[in-house]
């Protein structure tokens, strides 16, 4: 599904990723944990195609395609999804219009029939119910006036509608209370299956109590310094990152 080899990335001439190797097979959920400044968000942005991140070496292949050469919208249509740490507010862009436009753009890129407004609403309402979101959130501007938890749920709603093959969740747990965290985790768990992989980026182990990963990787100073099973997250929680710092 996703294979990253020797990826090095600079931001404004400063190296942030120093040779990341990572493979996520189809159907698996992996977690990346690491302290602030370790390069977690850089990894998510460079994979989704944000400007300002210069790839200086290495490769990232998604289902065999060189995704680093693709436009952000092409990556999305190919099945990549990024749940933002800080979802952007878009005043004047209706949430429903936004999501329908996104879904239809992807369907169009894949040569599938577009959904009309009624078909989309039916689908959206169904998905929203599962995420305990009120219909009202469809009518508002994208993320405008949403609480932190509502913004994250809105990200998960988009994921549920767009049905990506690989979702990257960038600190989706930050700023969430335990109830919102559970809802988000349920949203991810509901997608788990043979056709869905996820990369869960988090600072804390808490989220991984609810989304139990197949593999956990520790990212320090722009490198994966250790990989293991779900128990690695617990180990980190107990020992802190300092122990790994020494090992690295």
């Amino acid at each position, binding site marked *: 599904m996703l294979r990253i080899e020797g990826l090095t990335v600079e931001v404004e001439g400063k190296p942030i990723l120093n040779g990341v190797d990572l493979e996520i097979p189809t159907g698996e959920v992996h977690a990346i944990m690491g302290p602030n400044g370790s390069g977690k968000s850089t990894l998510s942005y460079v994979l*989704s*195609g*944000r*400007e300002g991140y210069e790839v200086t070496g290495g490769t990232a292949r998604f289902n065999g395609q060189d995704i680093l050469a693709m*436009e*952000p*919208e092409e*990556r*999305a*249509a190919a099945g990549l*999804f*990024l749940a*933002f740490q800080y*979802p*952007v507010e*878009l*005043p*004047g*862009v209706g949430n429903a219009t*936004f*999501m329908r*436009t*996104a*879904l239809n*753009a*992807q369907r169009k*890129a894949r040569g599938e029939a577009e959904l009309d407004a009624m078909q989309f609403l039916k689908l959206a309402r169904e998905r929203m119910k599962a995420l305990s979101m009120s219909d009202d959130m469809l009518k508002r*501007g994208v993320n405008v006036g949403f609480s932190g938890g509502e913004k994250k749920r809105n990200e998960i709603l*988009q994921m549920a509608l*767009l049905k990506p093959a690989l979702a990257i969740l960038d600190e989706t747990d930050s700023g969430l209370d335990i109830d919102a965290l559970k809802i988000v985790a349920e949203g991810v768990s509901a997608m788990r299956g043979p056709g869905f992989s996820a990369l869960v980026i988090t600072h804390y182990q808490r989220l991984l109590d609810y989304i139990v990963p197949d593999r956990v990787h520790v990212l320090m100073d722009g490198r994966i310094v250790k990989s293991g099973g779900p128990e690695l997250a617990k180990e980190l929680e107990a020992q802190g990152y300092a122990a790994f710092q020494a090992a690295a």
Partner: protein
Amino acid sequence: MTAAAQTGAAGFLARFEGLKDHLPGARRPWLNAMRAEAAVHFAARGFPTRRVEQWKYTDLAPVAQASFAEPLTMVQGALALPPANAPHRAVFVDGRFRADLSTMDGLAYRAGGLAQDLGAAEPFLGALAKPESEPLAALNTMLFEDGLFIDLPEGVDGGLLELVSVAVDPGRPFAFHPRHLVRLGAGARLTLIETAAGRGQCLHNPVFEIAVAEGAAFTHGRMLQEEATIFHLSTIYATIAAGGTYDNFTVAAGPRLTRNEIHAALTGPGAACHMNGAQMAADGQHVDTTTSLDHAAPGCASRQTYKTVLAGRSRGVFQGKIHVHRVAQKTDGYQMNQALLLSEEAEIDSKPQLEIYADDVKCSHGATVGALDADSLFYLRSRGIPEAQAKAMLVEAFLHEAVETVTDDTLRTALTRALDAWWVRQGRAA
């Protein structure tokens, strides 16, 4: 004919000399005197140059250097009119009222061509316009042939009325200067939806005189959508009495040069004025909104929000003056103008100006200028929306925000359509 060879102010003055005995109302001494006096003002000042403070950012040289003829012959036959927004519409072709193209039956008030009704208009014509200080108003006074005259009696709800102005290209440069008079009696209400369309090398120089009496409410939506060969220079004078409201929303999207100049005076306690709009310019175009608001009575409110979108090598101007007189305590004034620059060659000049002589007032103003937000653009693209479409969504969002304040559904729909039409044209041009 030598007049045709003369350019700018001299050309218009020469034509006035030749036409003055044939203009509508030529046998009415009061009107002759008014026109003659306007000609003196226009002769003294000519077209404003950039040395005049109010015209610092807008260069009228292309108008001053051209030679415009009057549209002397009546255009006959079928015309492509913009789609109707209301059951009643007054249609003007080259500045002249066309009863045959208009739908005015069943109106409960006086509305029609000014040229046919000069006697009734005498008390209002020239009551607000200031040809002595605004040369374009002087030019209009000198040469107007017609215009829309609306006289709404006390307490009448006039509903919706449409004003359509079409310029028909005669194949040579031409000019027309309609004078529109709108008078609302106490407690009267009216929504006027105005569309300016047309093509050709043309100067469209309308002047409005709008008097809103006590407790009356006038909503004025304007869509200036002429083609990119046209100079549209409009000047609005409005006076709003106690408890009255004047709502102006202008979409300027089309002409080569647009000047949307509004002078409004709040003259009685509790009067309100809302001046909002969206102006857009593409490569080679210039849009200018210049407002001047007089708070001349206590407890009045004013709101202004203008949005500017500039593409290509274009220029936008916003000048907004709020003058709070000494008596105007408890004034509530707000002004905001925001510009979105879609190209590095676009330029916006923004000049808010507050003059406050009362001590118990609430007045605020703000201005923002920016390009499309990179984070917003990335967010949309990361969801699979192609770059061009994502940009279009953000521009639409920026513009639609301006229209949200419009409460009349018909008007809001028409304005939104005008905004979207401009953006679609940009997409085709790009």
